Structure formats: C-alpha cells, structure tokens
C-alpha cells in the first residue's frame, strides 16, 4: 500500500510564497499529474515529496510513514528528471544498476532487474554505451529504466517528455502509459502540457500559483472545472466565461459568470428566440471541426462548430449555450454546484 499524503505544505523562497498550504491525497497505484503553467510551483512540490527540497511547514507521508524530515535516499522514491540526469561517466548498464548497487542488492538481482527494465524500455541493445553516445529519446528511456529498476514505492517524474521532439513525445507518452500501468507504481508526474495530463493521468491536480485548484479525474476536470482558472487553463480553446447580462432564464444566486465550453453551443445560421447574434471575427478549419472566434457587444466567444456550417468572417451566427453544459461561477471564480 503506497499512498502519498501531502498535508498543508508551505514553501517560500525569500519573499515569494511558492507553495501556499498544499494538500493532496494520492491513492495507492494511482497516476497523479501535477498540471499548471510554468512557475506555479509544480517542480517545487515534487522535489519536496522527493526530499530534494525542504518544506517550511507541513507533512509528507508515504504509506503510513512520515518522511518529511528524511533524506531522499530513505524515502524509497525514484525520480526521472527533465534533463534525464543520466550519469555521463557510467555505461547504460551501470546507470540502470546505480540504485540497486546503492542498496547493495545481490549481483544476480542487479543483472536481472537491469535486463528486465532495459528490455521493457527497448534499450537492451545499448547497455554497454555511454550516455554521450545516445539520442535524447534513448537517454530518456535510460532514465525511466533506472527509476523502474529499483522497484520504488513511488515514482516521481518532472516534465520527462518536454525535451523530446513532438513525434517522439507522442510515442513515448503512449509507451510510458502502458509501462507504468503494468508496473502499478504510485506515480506523481509533473507537466505543463494539458494534453499529456489528460492522456496519462488517473487524476489531475491543477495548480494555480502555489495552490491546488482542483484534484480530480480528467473527465471531471474537463466538464466541471472547479474554478474559472481551471476552466481557462484546460481545453483548447479554453472555456468561455460570459457575463450573465447575455443570459435569459434563471441565474443561480451569487453567479457572476457563465462558463461554457466552445463545443457546447446550439448553433443556427438564422435568428431564433433567445439565441445570441454573434459576429464572426475569424474562422479556422481544423479538420475535424472549425473553430470560430466571435464577438457580441465586446464579449469575446470561442466556438467550435461542425464542418457542415458554411460561415465567413464578418457573418452573423446565432448561439445558445446547451442547458446541461452551463456552469456557473461566483465573483471569486468558484463553481456553483
């Protein structure tokens, strides 16, 4: 049973409060993604879980063990770094074996584990090479194999795919997903890429300048963003936030914003009752659908519509949000349930 409990972790560097009381309950064998823009404190939180950085206050538990004040090597975690940190002076074999050697594992087990994880990551033919003789993608594989070889309680990854080119990233993402699903290791994975988060995560923690705005399964994050911030960070294009002035029908008490996803509008080319007449500013054909940006009295809309609707910029289109897709937000940007 390897749960991770993060309790009220605070951290500042100088005057800057980087983590403002973060709490997180990560379940056994779950794959959690910390998602947020660059600089929001994801790496700092991950490094505090790893023990590479110390918290100002708060508690980290791995399983039932409080590890907040233990050095990294006593936490039984493994980590994959953004720039891989594959030791240049050791062969691939020695890199993967490093953690086991440190634990003084018997030679037979070292050999077994190295060979197994190398095969899993398809680098078994590279074991004698040095990292200077590997491509970025291969180094990445070595870093993952090194982490898996120690059979850690917890696997931590900090933007492991961000240094790979787009195509390789897609391929590695799929591969990582299947490898990690099979390994059943509790994993915390940091990324700023929402697509990566959506495709890999069992659960996503969306971070907003030192806080976790929402921690939930990807579907919930997408369809019920807990805050305006989450709605506008996730989805491409993001959720529309519309002033209730445009709204007909009942508005829940305290609501100041209507949140609606670009694909959740009823669309018509002719005027209809309660439909908003919007002016199309730009249209982009994206293959599966077309994406419009449009405007009504200064309020900007992003709308995804089917390819069949013929429309040009400058035209007027009539919109109505689908009733069951409407989400309401308070003045402070919190969802009203």
């Amino acid at each position, binding site marked *: 049973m390897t749960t991770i409990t993060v309790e009220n972790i605070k951290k500042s560097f100088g005057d800057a409060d980087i983590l403002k009381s973060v709490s997180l309950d990560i379940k056994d064998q779950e794959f959690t993604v910390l998602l947020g823009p660059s600089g929001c404190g994801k790496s700092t939180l991950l490094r505090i879980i790893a023990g590479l950085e110390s918290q100002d206050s708060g508690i980290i538990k791995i399983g039932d063990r409080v590890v907040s004040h233990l050095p990294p*090597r006593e936490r039984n975690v*493994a980590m994959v770094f953004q*720039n891989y*940190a594959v*030791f240049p002076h050791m062969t691939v074999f020695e890199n993967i074996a490093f*953690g086991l050697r*440190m*634990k003084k594992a018997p030679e037979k087990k070292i050999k077994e584990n190295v060979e197994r994880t190398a095969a899993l990551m398809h680098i078994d033919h590279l074991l004698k090479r040095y*990292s200077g003789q590997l491509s970025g993608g291969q180094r990445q594989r070595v870093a993952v194999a090194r982490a898996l070889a120690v059979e850690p309680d917890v696997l931590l990854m900090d933007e492991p795919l961000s240094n790979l080119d787009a195509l390789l990233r897609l391929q590695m993402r799929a591969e990582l997903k299947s490898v990690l699903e099979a390994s059943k290791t509790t994993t915390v994975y940091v990324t700023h890429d929402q697509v990566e988060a959506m495709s890999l995560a069992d659960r996503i923690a969306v971070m907003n300048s030192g806080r976790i705005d929402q921690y939930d399964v990807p579907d919930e994050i997408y369809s019920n963003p807990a805050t305006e911030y989450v709605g506008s960070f996730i989805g491409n294009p993001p959720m529309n936030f519309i002033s209730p002035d445009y709204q007909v029908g009942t508005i829940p008490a305290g609501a100041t914003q209507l949140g609606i996803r670009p694909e959740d509008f009823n669309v018509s080319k002719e005027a209809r009752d309660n439909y908003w007449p919007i002016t199309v500013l730009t249209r982009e054909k994206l293959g599966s659908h077309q994406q419009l940006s449009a405007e009504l009295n200064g309020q900007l809309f992003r709308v995804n519509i089917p390819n069949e609707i013929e429309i040009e910029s400058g035209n007027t289109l009539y919109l109505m949000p689908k009733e069951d897709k409407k989400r309401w937000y308070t003045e402070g940007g919190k969802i009203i349930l």
Partner: protein
Amino acid sequence: MNKKYYPYVLIAPSVLFLLLFFVYPFLEVFVQAFTSSDGQVGFSNFENIFTDYNFLPSLKNTLLLALVVVPVQLCMAIGMSLMISKMKKGRDTVLYILTIPLGVSDLAAGIIWLAILDQNGFLNSFLFSIGIIDQPESWLNYQNPIIIFAAVVVAEIWRATAILLVILVSGIGLIPKEYYEAAEIFGANSWVRLWKVTLPLLRPSLQTALILRTLLAFEVFAVVMLLGGSNMPVLMGETFNWAFNYQDTGAASAYAVVILALSIVFTLFYLRVLRVPKGARI
C-alpha cells in the same frame, strides 16, 4: 581581405613571438645538451651530470617533493573547492583571499617563509615569547634535512595550492546539480556522491590541475634555494649552478632536458590514468 583569414592574421604576432622566444631557445637547449664542449655530438653532457655527486640527491629531492606536495595539495584543493562550491554568499571573497599567494613570486614566498623560520624569525620569537623554548633555535641547518624538507613542503603548499583550487572550483561549477540529485534519490550518501559522481565527472579538471601542478613542482627552485640552500639540491637548482656557477651551458642544458623528460613522462601518465572514455563526457 577575406574574413576567414582574420583569426590567422590576428593570432600571427603571438605565434611569431613564441616561435622566436620559445621554440628557438628550446631547440637551442637541445642542441647544446647533445653537443659536448669539444663540439662532438653525443651524450657527454649527460655523462657529466649523471656522474656528478649532486645529481641523484637532486633527482630524489625533486621527485620526493612532488610526491609529497602534489597529493597533499590535491586533497586540500578538492576539500576546499567542495566547500567553496557549496557557499551561497561570499564565495568570491573567499576565493580571492585563498588565491592571494598565487600573486606572490616564488622568490618572495621563499623570503616570507625564511622570515618566519629563520633563527631570528617570527616562529622563534613567538615560541620564545610564550616560553616554549629557552633560546632561538636554528631549524634550517644541514643537521636537520627533514626539517628543511618539511619547511619547503609547507611553503610550497602555502604558495601554490590555489592553482589547483581555482581549476577545481571552475570544474565543479560545470557539473549540473541534477547528477547529485539523481545520485541522492537513488541512495548515495555524500561520501558516495563524492566518489561516484563528483570525482569521476571532475576528471578533466583534475587532469589539467595535476599536470600543471606537477610540472611546476619539477621546476621548484627559489623556495628551496632560500630555505635549504646547498643542503637540499633540486634539479632546477643544479641547472642554475651548472649554468651560472660552473659556466657549463652544455651540462645545464642536459639538466633542462632531464626535467623536460620527467615532465613528459608524468603528463602522459596523467593523460592515461585520468582519461575520459569517448562519449562519457558531460
């Protein structure tokens, strides 16, 4: 003029200067070393110096001095550079202070240490004033070769450790911190990190530092001359003696060639032992 010639044109004066004032005298030394006084080409100069009663002691002293001084300085420099690299504030100041002796010529260093260790020196006055000795002692005389040797060792360590230090500090600065973090995560304590990460990744800097320092150790002269005089002959001192006291440039050149040969042997040794395999660089 074509732009691609610029670097060559601009570097040309330095190259010419070196050819004129370094390579030419260098070749001249070789010619003299292998030319006997009657103009014959051969090894007579070497026979002369090898059979001289001072040759073996000077070779022994030089090698012994390098063997003691260089490893001690290396360990000190590694320790100091590790500490300096961990400093967040004031590290430049500390580094400047530690490198002050580098700005002092070896002759001046010898004079400083002579002023300390001399019969009327600071050490004697100090020990006398706190009552440990009853009268000033003459440490640096021929009856105490070990004390002379130790004094030279101390002076050399004081004078030239900073050369190793600056090279190692910059070398450590080149090692990305992720390697230490990875090692830490995968179970290495700080001692293991030093041996398995820092030192292996520092090999290129260690190589440079050791070659530089060892070659300088073979040229040790002024400090030894001041503290030991004729009681502690070294290769460079003998070269000086043959050139200026015995007026025998052939023999002096032969000494110079011996020092050069030693330097080459040790350089090759370091290049070999601290070699970084292809593809294993940072």
